[in-house]
């Protein structure tokens, strides 16, 4: 490969990092040059230090883990309920049309508006946080799964039928597979929503651990490096979950779009 081609390849690999590097440099310039009150904006080094020491010596790892557990549990509950319900609703257009409005309505309702309701039902413990996150995730998964099943292209179903497959097998062997790409879209949005709700719930529904509680605590005692470190941890978690889903999707819907 020529030197020029080599440089091009290296540039291509560096491109995604470039934007982040520029952002960090701007941040560093802003805090070093006192453009922003240092109480509000600590240096990148201070925040990074808070992040690393939080992980190694402090309780950041514990909070991180608690948030992961809550998000995962609510997401799993959401899948277990929402996927079968979505398949059931989608397999009959009549049923789907009759519940479409309700699903759409609750899907459009901000989950945070439901916090008080869930508190009344489940109490101020873990259950309320997990239930409200599962609820929010489930709605979007139901919607997408049902949509995927309903809009599955018909030819493969006909092919299975002409090969002698009974109705139920057409559903399990063809329609569900056909809807899988759309179901994955739902699951990816679902886990993001679950994370958002869990973080907010940790902030405001009496919590003693979790990233949300950590962020709000750091803010209350004005420990800005700590707060930035926790925000960064929450961002990394969201990004990581998204990445995980892209990998899962490639693995399970390897045929999607082909």
């Amino acid at each position, binding site marked *: 490969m020529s030197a020029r081609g080599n440089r091009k390849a290296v540039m291509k690999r560096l491109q995604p990092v470039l934007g982040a590097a520029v952002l960090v440099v701007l941040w560093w310039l802003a805090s070093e040059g006192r453009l922003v009150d240092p109480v509000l904006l600590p240096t990148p080094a201070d925040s990074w230090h808070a992040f690393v020491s939080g992980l190694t010596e402090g309780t950041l790892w514990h909070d991180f883990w608690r948030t992961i557990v809550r998000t995962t549990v609510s997401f799993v509950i959401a899948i277990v309920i929402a996927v079968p319900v979505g398949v059931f609703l989608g397999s009959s257009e009549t049923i789907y049309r009759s519940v479409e409005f309700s699903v759409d309505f609750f899907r459009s309702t901000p989950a945070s508006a439901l916090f008080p309701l869930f508190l009344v039902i489940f109490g101020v413990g873990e259950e309320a946080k997990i239930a409200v996150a599962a609820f929010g995730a489930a709605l979007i998964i139901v919607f997408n799964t049902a949509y995927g099943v309903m809009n599955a292209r018909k*030819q493969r179903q006909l092919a299975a*039928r*002409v090969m*002698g497959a*009974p109705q139920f097998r057409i559903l399990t062997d063809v329609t569900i597979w056909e809807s899988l790409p759309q179901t994955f879209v739902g699951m990816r949005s679902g886990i993001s929503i679950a994370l958002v709700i869990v973080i907010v719930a940790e902030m405001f529904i009496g919590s003693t651990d979790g990233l949300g509680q950590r962020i709000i605590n750091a803010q209350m005692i004005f420990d800005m490096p700590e707060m930035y470190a926790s925000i960064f941890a929450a961002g990394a978690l969201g990004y990581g979950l998204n990445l995980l889903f892209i990998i899962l999707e490639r693995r399970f819907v*390897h*045929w999607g779009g082909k």
Partner: protein
Amino acid sequence: MNKVLARVPIDPSTMADTPAAQSASPASDPDRLRWFPKGTHITIRGLTKTFDDVVLYKDFDLDIPKGKVVSVFGPNGCGKSTLINMISGILDHDSGQILFDGKTARETRIGYVFQNYREAVFPWSRAIDNIRYPLQFLGLSKAERDDRVEELLTSFDVKIDLNRYPYELSGGQQQLVSIMRALVVDPEVLFLDEPFSALDYEMTLFLRDRLQKVLTDRDVTTLLVSHDLDEAVMLADEILLLTKKPTQVAERLQFNAPRPRTPETTLTDEFIAVKTRSLEVFQREVRR
């Protein structure tokens, strides 16, 4: 009773040669329901199909002989695919009766090859699992199923890696998988809906050749829809020419050239005569 007797030919063996005479019988004659020539596999009586007020088929009668390849040819929009879809049970019809030796489509082992192979194979299954798929509905043992697949692969002599997923194969290879999937059940009836029209010429020749070989070995009743008259005649024992809608049988032509047929077959007098006659009927119907 007298009337029925009067319509039964004295020598039934002559009947296979004149099926057009029966399918042209008036739909109002109630006895046509009881009567069909010897060697018939599929009987269609009083078939009616309407799409949004457009009458496509009305009181359509047809007898399809057993173990023969019948090519369906006709003007655009006359419902060639619709016809085989109704016969195969993929599409519902409004009224009328379609029976396979007295059985319904659901009770019959059917192989169906779609024109659009991309949306017919199951992309989530490996090619070999696609081929195996319909066998599970036949109530065979695992050993019997494996034998069937093995036998089929031998007769097709395929050189492709069947452990790949369909999207890793070329278009022609995907259609080959879908043809094998249709044949693995040893179908009583095989439907081919323009199976080669989305493929390049080289692949078409190859697949035609393989298909012909397998069909000659098996004697399966086959209905082929094709846009290509050369192909329709070349593969057929009989060419079924249809009219414009409301569709009726325009003419049925026999083509008895020996098999296997090769590209040289298209140069024989018999081929040219049948093709010329088909074209005449086709053009007459298009202009009508």
